[in-house]
C-alpha cells in the first residue's frame, strides 16, 4: 500500500454520496479507500489533522482559459494549474480557444505535456467543436476525445451557421460525445460589450440583449430534440435563459447548464463608471437576472458553477471599457464564493459544494467530484472560517484582472490532494 494518508477528524462533505459528518477518511494508491473505519491493515504514512476543517471533493471547473499555447504573456498552463490547486480546484476543463486552437491531437498533446510537467491539478481538455473554432468544418472530434478531450466545445465562439451546428451535434451524438455550447447569437452580440439595459443606455455603450442568449438556446434546444445530442450550456447569463433550460430538462432533453460564479455576485451596475474589469462575455446582466440565476443554482436547474477563468496581463484591461479585452480571473475565488453562497443562506452547504464538484463532474460524466471509496483521491481540506483579502499578492493566478480585488472572503484551502498526492499546502 503506497502513498497512504489518513485525514483525521474533518467534516466530510460529499454531496454525491449524501455524506455530511465528522469522520476519518482513508486514502491509498491514489484512491479513496474508506470512510469512518480503517480498512484492514491500513498504516498511514501521513496523517492530516482536519479537526475544525471541511474535507470536500476537489473542485471541478468547467470553464477556464489557460492561455497556452498562444498567449503566454497572460498566463501559462504550469502556473495556472498550480493556482487551481491552491484554490482547491483539482480538475480544470481548459478552453480549446488557444492559438492554435485545440482542434488536433498535436496541439492537444502539447497541452497535455505542459499539464504533466506542472505536477499540479488535473487538466481536462476540451476539444474544439469545429476546425479552428471557425464554425465551418467539423473538428476531428472522435480522435480528440480518444486522445483525452472530455468534451468538445465552441470555446466561447458560437457557431452561427445552423446547418454546421446541426451536423456537429449529429456527429457528436454518434460517438456519445458531450458538446459544450455558449448560447450567444453572433448576430445579436456583434459590436457590443455589455447588457442592453439602462446602465448601457447611460454610458452610451451598445448593449447585448437577453435575446442573444434565448434565441441561441432556442436554436440549440430544437437541434438537441432533432439529434439527441448531449449538450451542456456554458455560462448562462439571464433569467429567461435559465427558465428555458429548466423547461427543456422537464421535457427530458439531455441538457445541462452552468453559470459563471461572477454572474451570481455582480450585475450591470458594477460597470457604472466604465469599469473595464467588469467587461465580460456573456455580459453582467440586471439584478433580476442575477437573482433568477441564484435561484436556479439553489434549486439545481443549474447544476454547475464555473470560474470562467480568463486571466489577462494589465495592458489588456488598461483601455476604455469597450476596447478592453473581456474576462475575469476566477480560479482564486471559486471556492470562497461558493462558500459565500451558503453563508448568504442561498443554499445548504452540501448543495453549495455540489455545484462546484459533483454537479460539473456529472454534467460531463467525469470520474471526479466525489469521495466515494474507489474514486480518485482528489480532495481538499478547507479552513471554512479563515478570512482573507483578495489582493494581487494573495492571488495565485498570473491574471490579476478581477473587480473583486479588495473583497474580504472567508474559507481558505489548507491542503489539496490529487490522486492522493499533495499538490498544494498553505504554509
Amino acid at each position, binding site marked *: 500500500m503506497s502513498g497512504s494518508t489518513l485525514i483525521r477528524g474533518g467534516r466530510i462533505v460529499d454531496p454525491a454520496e449524501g455524506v455530511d459528518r465528522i469522520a476519518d477518511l482513508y486514502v491509498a494508491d491514489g484512491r479513496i479507500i474508506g470512510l469512518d473505519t480503517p480498512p484492514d491493515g491500513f498504516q498511514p504514512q501521513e496523517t492530516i489533522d482536519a479537526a475544525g476543517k471541511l474535507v470536500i471533493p476537489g473542485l471541478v471547473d468547467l470553464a477556464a482559459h489557460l492561455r497556452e499555447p498562444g498567449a503566454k504573456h497572460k498566463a501559462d498552463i504550469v502556473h495556472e494549474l498550480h493556482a487551481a490547486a491552491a484554490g482547491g480546484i483539482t480538475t480544470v476543463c481548459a478552453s480549446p480557444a488557444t492559438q492554435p486552437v485545440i482542434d488536433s491531437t498535436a496541439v492537444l498533446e502539447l497541452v497535455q505535456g505542459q499539464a504533466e510537467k506542472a505536477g499540479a491539478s488535473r487538466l481536462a481538455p476540451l476539444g474544439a467543436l469545429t476546425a479552428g473554432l471557425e464554425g465551418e468544418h467539423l473538428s476531428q472530434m472522435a480522435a480528440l476525445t480518444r486522445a483525452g478531450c472530455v468534451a468538445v466545445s465552441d470555446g466561447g465562439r458560437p457557431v452561427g451557421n445552423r446547418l454546421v451546428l446541426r451536423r456537429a451535434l449529429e456527429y457528436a451524438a454518434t460517438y456519445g460525445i458531450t458538446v459544450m455550447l455558449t448560447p450567444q447569437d453572433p448576430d445579436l452580440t456583434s459590436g457590443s460589450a455589455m447588457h*442592453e*439595459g*439602462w446602465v*448601457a*443606455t*447611460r*454610458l*452610451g*455603450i*451598445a*448593449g447585448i*440583449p437577453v435575446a442573444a442568449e434565448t434565441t441561441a438556446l432556442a436554436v440549440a434546444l430544437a437541434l438537441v430534440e432533432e439529434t439527441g445530442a448531449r449538450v451542456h450550456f456554458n455560462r448562462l447569463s439571464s433569467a429567461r435563459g435559465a427558465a428555458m433550460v429548466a423547461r427543456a430538462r422537464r421535457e427530458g432533453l439531455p441538457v445541462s447548464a452552468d453559470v459563471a460564479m461572477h454572474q451570481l455576485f455582480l450585475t450591470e451596475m458594477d460597470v*457604472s*463608471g*466604465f469599469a*473595464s474589469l467588469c467587461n465580460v462575455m456573456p455580459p453582467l446582466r440586471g439584478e433580476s437576472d442575477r437573482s433568477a440565476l441564484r435561484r436556479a443554482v439553489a434549486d439545481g436547474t443549474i447544476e454547475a458553477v464555473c470560474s470562467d477563468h480568463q486571466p489577462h496581463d494589465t*495592458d489588456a484591461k*488598461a*483601455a*476604455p*471599457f*469597450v*476596447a478592453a479585452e473581456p474576462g475575469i480571473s476566477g480560479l482564486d475565488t471559486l471556492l470562497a464564493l461558493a462558500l459565500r453562497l451558503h453563508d448568504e443562506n442561498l443554499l445548504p452547504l452540501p448543495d453549495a459544494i455540489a455545484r462546484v464538484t459533483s454537479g460539473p463532474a456529472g454534467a460531463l460524466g467525469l470520474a471526479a467530484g466525489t469521495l466515494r471509496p474507489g474514486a480518485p483521491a482528489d480532495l481538499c481540506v478547507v479552513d471554512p472560517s479563515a478570512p482573507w483579502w483578495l489582493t494581487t499578492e494573495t492571488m495565485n493566478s498570473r491574471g490579476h484582472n478581477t473587480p473583486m480585488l479588495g473583497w474580504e472572503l472567508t474559507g481558505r484551502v489548507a491542503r489539496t490532494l490529487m490522486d492522493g498526492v499533495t499538490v498544494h499546502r498553505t504554509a
Partner: protein
Amino acid sequence: MNGRDIQLDEHGRLRHFLTTEGLPRDLLERILDTAGSFTGVIEKSIKTVPLLRGRTVINLFFEASTRTRTTFELAAKRLSSDVLNIDVATSATSKGESLLDMLRNLEAMQCDMFVVRHAESGAAHFIAEHVGDDVAVINAGDGRHAHPTQAMLDMYTIRRHKGAFEPLRVAIVGDILHSRVARSQIHALNGLGAGEVRVVGPRTLLPRDVERLGVHVYHDITEGLRDVDVVITLRLQRERMRGALLPSEQEYYQLYGITEERLALAKPDAIVMHPGPINRGVEIESAVADGERSVILNQVTNGIAVRMAIMSMCLEGRGTPAEEDA
C-alpha cells in the same frame, strides 16, 4: 459612480468636465453665468482675457471634428493659453503606441489640460483616471456617451431665449440611441430643473430603458411636439439605414422631420435647435432651419463663451503657474 466622484474636488469645484450627469444644479448654473460674463469679452474689439496665461491646453482629437476643435481652440486662445492641436488619427497610436504611453509622453510636456474627443464611450473617463492630479480633462465627445460642452452651450442658448428652466417642456427628436449630445442634454436639462424632457423617435433609435434617464417617450411626432417650448432635432447619420434601424430617409422625414406644419403644434414662441451639421430635408425642413424660430447659428457663437467658462473653471482651483514659480 455617477460622474461626480471623479469630476469634482473636495470643495465641489470642477476638476474635470466629463459628463453633465450628476452635476449639482448650482454648478451647472455657475457655468452658464460665467459663460454670460465671457460673451461680453467676445463682442469687444480686444477679445482676450488673461485667465489661462502661461497654461498649455492640448486638443487631443482621436476623431476628426473641425467645428468642435476650432471652438475649443478659439476659447483657449481667448483665455490667453497656449494651444497644441494633436490629430491622433495620423499620430503615434496608429503606429501601435498605446493610449497610456501616449498620455505619459504628452504629460511630460507639462500641459495643464487635455481636451479629448474619442470614438469610444468612456475614453475621457479613462484618460481622467490616468492623468496626474494637476491635469484637467475636458470631454469633447466620447462615443455615444457624452458631449457635455455641447449640451451646456445648448442650455446657455435655451436660457438666453427662455429664462428659467422650470416651466419648460423640451422635446429631443431623432436618433437618441447613437447621440452623445442627447444624453448630455437630458442630464443637463434634468439637473437644471426643466419641467419636462421628451424624447421622440422610433423604437430602433431609442436606447433600452431610456425613460430611466428621466424622460417621457413619444413615438408620434404630433404628440411629442404638442405644447413644447424647445424642439431639439438631432442629426440623422446615413449609416443608420445600413444597420437596419430605418427603412429610408424619406420615411424618416415623413414620420419625424421638423416642418412648419408640425412646429405649429408647439408653443407659438417655441425655439428650434440642432447641434449641427444639418441634413436639410432629412431631419428638418429648410424653412424651419432658416426660419425665425431657429436659433441654430446662435448656438455656434455661444459655444466659444461656454467653453471658455468650462476651461477656466476646471483650472481655477489649481493655482496659477506664476504662484507656483514664486
